[in-house]
């Protein structure tokens, strides 16, 4: 009886190990937080088309970069900027020639409550708000773009006392969604992913007000000979896929 039980446990254990190898992924992607919802769509489409599986780790690009430098097991890196993939390439951690822009970020001013936000610049200038949320310009590309836009509009000095910082654009969205901040600069993709009602309370910041948010992807060294990873990068460049990226709130280069 005892023998029987321990045998069963061994079998059970082997089954666990075995199923774990079955679900092992073919591509492990590090994905910038702002691209998460779009990535979800692309991931299921890629998996359907190719039979490969992807797992993703989300985070701010800076954190993902630091993890990659410390040997994180990522095959591809989809950054929120162009600088970090370039840096990885220069440091010899990414495959040379694999780097390209998969999306251009679109910055919007958004409010969870106030429809007037569509008047954009005028609402900011009137200053009838307590808190304006930005992603931290020092660490988040969307934050840097928001600050640039405010400087362009000659508003930075005026609103600075009312600015609160999210550590990334996802947290900035959270501040606005919970109405703790009346206004906030977030990514268009975030607003579109929620509801149609949310999409009526936005003002898209003219793209001439800020440096383009070029979001680059790169293949990392460990995936040099990973076919699934190379195929995923090709997938991102397909016209049909670029269309999806565009529909979910990005520009495509």
């Amino acid at each position: 009886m005892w023998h029987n039980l321990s045998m069963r446990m061994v079998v059970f254990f082997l089954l666990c190990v075995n199923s774990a190898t079955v679900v092992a992924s073919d591509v492990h992607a590090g994905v910038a937080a702002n691209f998460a919802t779009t990535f979800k769509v692309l991931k299921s489409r890629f998996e359907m088309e190719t039979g490969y599986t992807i797992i993703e780790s989300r985070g701010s690009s800076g954190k993902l970069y630091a993890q990659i430098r410390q040997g994180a097991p990522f095959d591809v890196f989809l950054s929120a900027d162009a600088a970090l993939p370039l840096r990885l390439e220069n440091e010899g951690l990414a495959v040379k020639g694999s780097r390209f822009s998969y999306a251009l970020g679109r910055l919007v001013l958004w409010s969870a409550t106030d429809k007037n936000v569509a008047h954009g610049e005028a609402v900011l200038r009137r200053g009838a708000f307590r808190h304006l949320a930005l992603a931290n310009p020092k660490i988040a590309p969307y934050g840097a773009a928001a600050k640039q836009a405010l400087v362009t509009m000659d508003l930075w000095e005026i609103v600075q006392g009312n600015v609160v910082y999210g550590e990334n654009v996802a947290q900035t969205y959270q501040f606005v969604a919970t109405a703790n901040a009346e206004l906030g600069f977030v990514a268009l993709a975030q607003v579109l992913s929620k509801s149609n009602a949310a999409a009526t309370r936005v003002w898209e910041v003219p793209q001439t007000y800020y440096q383009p948010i070029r979001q680059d992807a790169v293949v990392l060294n460990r995936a040099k000979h990973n076919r699934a990873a190379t195929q995923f990068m090709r997938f991102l460049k397909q016209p049909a896929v670029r269309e999806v990226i565009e529909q979910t709130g990005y520009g495509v280069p």
Partner: protein
Amino acid sequence: MSLTSIDLSPIFLTLKLAGLTTVVLLLVGTPVSWWLSRTQRRWKPAVEAVVALPLVLPPTVLGFYLLLAFGPQGWIGAPWQQLTGSALSFTFTGLVIASVLYSLPFVVQPLQGTFEAIGHKPLEAAACLRASPVDAFFSICVPMAVRGYVTAAVLGFAHTLGEFGVVLMVGGSIPGKTLVLSISIYEHVESLDYATAHALSAGLLAFSFVVLLAVYVVNRRFRYRIA
């Protein structure tokens, strides 16, 4: 990277937050832990469990609910707004409230233990000598509980120093108001300024060690004196 170029205001802000939180915690924690050490009520375990929750909950859970509660329609934020005319989220006051909740078990649990160890006898003796309960508490229990108070104060202080997740979620990282040391370190790491992150982290590590060491040294001395 020279030390002089590092912005030191997060350090002072953090000390101020931890200090103020500790004072509030000792004031709030004393009656709570006294009640817990004396009561026989049926819901005592429930109160104990609530007090201990911040020990096991991820700070993101506490931070998320506080963010909702602090909002203009939130159950803390709305009355606060009416009372004071100002918001709680993204303010220093909001951080103090969050820190008090977050560090509550670190103050209540050692105090409760100390009060339980004192037992009923000293108070009964005081009552026989016609001391009022309040008088007995302050002239007998508090002096006897010094060790517990030192431990509680230091743990509450040190735990608030290291607070991160909750502050990240309700603070908004405003320099001089809510940008505390742990957040500042995080931002330096994120912006790949590892040198400054190192300097600040090493400072916090050393400071925390010294504080804890002081508690254990002091506790040892008191143990001999009281026993």
